[in-house]
């Protein structure tokens, strides 16, 4: 499968196969006007299969969201057809309004206007917990 190279934009590479639509949703790419190419199950020497997202025209994305989902993802910034920067991802200490707490006993289930805030509590296990009720966020 061929997708034309970007002149200017972002390539999100080394996405775990099957996760690209989660990233599409978290980055709210559906709300943008620019062209977005989603490549599923591309061959990868390192990963076997991987997903890739290419976003045309955009040079700035929320790296915290990507770090939260999977900090092994690589982000390449493209300008004039060349990679001008490779962004390194880290797991953010805090994420705001990216995911919601699923605990029906949590105040976030009823309080209007509240921010959804999760805190990294175990880096090795990649554990994020709701700051209000401490329920673990279960990634798919």
């Amino acid at each position, binding site marked *: 499968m061929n997708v034309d190279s970007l002149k200017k934009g972002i390539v999100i590479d080394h996405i775990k196969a099957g996760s690209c639509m989660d990233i599409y949703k978290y980055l709210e790419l559906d709300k943008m006007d620019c062209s977005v190419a989603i490549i599923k199950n591309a061959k990868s020497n390192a990963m076997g299969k991987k997903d890739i997202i290419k976003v045309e025209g955009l040079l700035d994305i929320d790296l915290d969201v990507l770090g939260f989902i999977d900090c092994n993802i690589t982000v390449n910034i493209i300008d004039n057809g060349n990679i001008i920067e490779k962004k390194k991802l880290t797991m953010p200490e805090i994420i705001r309004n990216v995911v919601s707490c699923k*605990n029906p*006993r*949590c*105040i*976030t*289930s*009823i*309080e*209007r*206007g*509240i921010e959804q805030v999760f805190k990294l*509590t*175990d880096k090795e*296990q990649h*554990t994020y*917990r*709701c*700051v*209000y*009720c*401490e*329920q*673990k966020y279960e990634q798919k």
Partner: protein
Amino acid sequence: MKHIITPLDLSIKEMDSYLDLADRIMAAPKKFSHVCDGKKLATLFYEPSTRTRLSFEAAMLNLGGSVLGFSSSESSSATKGENVADTIRVISSFADICAIRHPKEGAPMVAAQYSKIPVVNAGDGGHQHPTQTLTDILTIRALKGRLQGLTVGLCGDLKFGRTAHSLITTLARYANIRFVLISPLELKIPDYIRDTTLIQKNIPFQEVERLENIIGDLDVLYMTRVQRERFFNEEDYVRLKDSYILDMAKMNLAKKDMIVLHPLPRVNEIATEVDQDPRAVYFEQVQYGVYIRMALIMKLLEVDDIER
């Protein structure tokens, strides 16, 4: 300005200073009877409570202050749909300090984010209950003489039992503490306590289902009630409510100097025959609760220097 939302909002040093102040109050309560003259405590109780609310109110009245508030969500604007953030903004104009109990976990943290006055968590759902923990550790320190080197058994509903969560979190910071967690499989401690408080910090603990097998090892036994209000399903409550009943037959297997605590209310998890045993200290514990809340109010209102 300080809020008390979880027990970890106080360092061990701060907590010790609260306990020391409570000791001083206990020794001479009259000396403190006017230190909060003109100050007001708001008690915002969205969930029923007898002990905690009255204990807070008694504490403020003992200090010369006054109290206002509500004792159920039905008697507040919550029934009109007002959220916690708006309520606390308003209450901040009426009072100098507030204690909030709410059925939803994290509600006091939300209140603290919008409050202009110190907020104290008086129990949030099945999550935390830091002032009960201050009560518990004041009781343990007064009656056992130490908070280190204890084997502490917690028995009953450890899943939704907020008093148990706060007590484990707090005692885990003291040296040579060992926990024995006694509960049915369905009511074991939540993973945030097991993973982040016990396993990550290498605190020794064991999880067992039978109280009589381990009661002889314990220095402190903390009994809890299986709480009907935490269950979405009545059948589960009925099945689990009588999982543990502490009676004299079990007490006879315990050490002579073990103490039995309970945050109250008790339903039937402690047989009334145990009340006569000198090791049953749960009614004394209630009195310690008033002293520590007096100390807490003074510390948060920064009036603790007046008596010295």
